[in-house]
């Protein structure tokens, strides 16, 4: 019995390991959606960009005698640059002329452009990221907890709190909330809507770089398509938590990770082998459908009120 409980707790931590990465990615989704109501489908690919920067800069950073995680700084700079360029070159013109549907399609196009562009530059093959940090495994009795999981969760919580404080108390944060409430009225109040949106994108993209760091600590390999599935799962996490809600993204990510892990671990036993662990992805995306049907605003999102 004791072993069963340890097994169960281990499986929860296995879920938190990937879930904490989903959380970091979902924070970026929710940040952008919360302000401009755009689901930035290229967000997963920003993570890919960040991971390539990490892979390429870590050897140089280590050669300078700095710890490898410092590579997150060039990664943030690069992701912010890519994010702002994508916003200015693709989303802004579309936002001014089209509707939310055209914006969504543009986001998908940007995602494909980034994936295929990096495939053209780096080739389709997988490349290994050098070791970033050796985090010791925590042992509590028989229970083993991956150190990277804890750091990722702590980092996620810090970012979540910082974002929440930023959005609530700073002038820029207030401008963001105002733009999200009513874009036209914000212009009348003298808020520079375009620069506010650009700032939102810069923050969202910077978060992608941080997420790519923690992703590469746990899963040290990059490839042009790596962001696609990760982005989708994190999107489900953001919707589950309530897209637009910062704490919701955090909770949603962890829940998705744990659901995935427990599905893999127990569904075969529970259903007598009819449904196997191979169904874990189907169950994750099943959650998306159920949330959209039952509670479209998600666990922590505010109910959508139609703005006239």
């Amino acid at each position, binding site marked *: 019995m004791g072993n069963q409980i340890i097994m169960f707790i281990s499986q929860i931590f*296995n879920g938190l390991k990937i879930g904490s990465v989903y959380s970091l990615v979902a924070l970026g989704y929710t940040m952008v959606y919360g302000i401009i109501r755009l689901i930035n489908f290229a967000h997963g690919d920003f993570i890919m960009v960040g991971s390539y920067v990490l892979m390429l800069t870590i050897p140089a950073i280590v050669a300078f005698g700095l710890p490898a995680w410092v590579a997150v700084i060039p990664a943030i700079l690069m992701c912010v640059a890519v994010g702002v360029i994508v916003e200015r070159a693709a989303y802004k013109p579309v936002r001014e002329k089209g509707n939310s549907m055209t914006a969504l399609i543009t986001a998908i196009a940007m995602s494909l452009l980034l994936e295929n562009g990096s495939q053209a530059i780096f080739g389709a*093959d997988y490349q290994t990221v050098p070791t970033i940090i050796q985090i010791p495994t925590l042992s509590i009795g028989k229970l083993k907890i991956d150190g990277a999981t804890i750091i990722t969760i702590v980092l996620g919580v810090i970012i979540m709190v910082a974002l929440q404080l930023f959005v609530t108390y700073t002038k820029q944060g207030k401008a963001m909330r105002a733009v999200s409430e009513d874009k036209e009225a914000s212009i009348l109040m003298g808020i520079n809507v375009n620069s506010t949106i650009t700032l939102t994108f810069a923050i969202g993209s910077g978060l992608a770089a941080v997420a790519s760091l923690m992703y590469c600590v746990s899963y040290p390999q990059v490839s042009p398509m790596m962001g696609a599935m990760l982005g989708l799962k994190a999107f489900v996490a953001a919707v589950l938590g309530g897209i637009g809600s910062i704490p919701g993204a955090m909770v949603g990510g962890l829940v998705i990770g744990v659901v995935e892990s427990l599905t893999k*671990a127990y569904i075969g036993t529970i259903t007598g082998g009819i449904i196997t662990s191979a169904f874990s992805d189907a169950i994750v995306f099943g959650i998306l459908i159920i949330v959209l049907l039952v509670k479209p605003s998600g666990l922590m999102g505010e109910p959508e009120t139609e703005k006239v």
Partner: protein
Amino acid sequence: MNAKFSAKCVALIAAGAMSMSLAACSGGSMDDSSSSNGSAANSDTITLGSVTTNSGTAAAYGEAEVAGFKLAVDEINAKGGINGKKVKLESMDDKGDATEASNAFNKLAGDNSVLGVVGPTISSTTAAVAPLADQSKLPAIAPAATSDSIETGGYMFRTCFKDSYQGEIAAKFAAETLKVKKVAVLYGTGDPYSSGVGKAFAAAAKKAGLDVVAEENSSSADDTEYSSQLQKIQAAGAEFLYAPYYYSVAGPYIIPQARSVGYKGYVMGPDGYDGLKMTDDKSLYNKVLYTTHYSPDDTSNAKVQDFIKSYKKANKNADPNTFTALGYDSVYMMKQAIEKAGKNATRESVRNAIAGMSFEGVTGNFTLDKKGSPKKSVIVLELKDGKPQYKTTIQPSK
């Protein structure tokens, strides 16, 4: 090889293939050994067709195979040809595309001087060509198309083992060489290669009397997180884990995650482990094994060193790879069959000579089964400090 597996080896053997492609391109139609015989229907020559992928993502495979074909043809001609006739190789590029492969094969089928075809290169093109071979009654030997789904045994045969055969051999290896008792298997249900090999292993392991303590799945063969399944495998007390995934997943994800949940036993995989992507800590990869077609360090087969020597001499000291070896064997299989069919060999008599033939080659000694696939010896490699080393050769069960 299926498409995904194709993509993987490209980088792996690109370096070797680069030098080969130079050699291959300069030869043009590859028939420089019989340059005096221009006409196709010349009765002094035997024409072999080849359909391979010489451009696109799998080009490195095709180029390596062509290098193997060319070496074998040159050797045969230097020793007086087949039945006293010189051999001419008619090479076609299928660009890795099923339609192009079909067109190329049909063109060869329409040329009455062509007695047999070696190729195609990858599984998808081979699957498209197999029914055409039956229709046109032109025998073909695919060097490296491993997919189980290819219809062979009519006029299409292969030199390589089938994917699922590796699962059977791994079970035999676990039971007889490693002498483990409790085994586990993990495979991706969304991928025919991973699930085909995994299921074959599970079935063979049960048959061999091994205790399959866990049979776990993942949704796809390119997931990143396997800790949940691995934790169960570890808790079930497995000593040996068979995880048929690709080099890009087994290397950075499955093996380190298995070690991180405390699993210390063997991890074994199929030829998809070739060129495994490893993290910096190479000690995680001890007790990792995989099966493959050919090893330059194979000491149990005298033909291997002769082949390497001969290849190096003809190719500016470059090393041959698996595809070269399989291509080389394919041409010699044709030679053996045409010799058996005799002076008046026809396509049909050559086909009958290939069916059920016994052959001794660089990639092992084997007999073709009723379905046209070899039951052959398989090489097992073991990683030592991240480097694959020749472990043993597993002979097929009787």
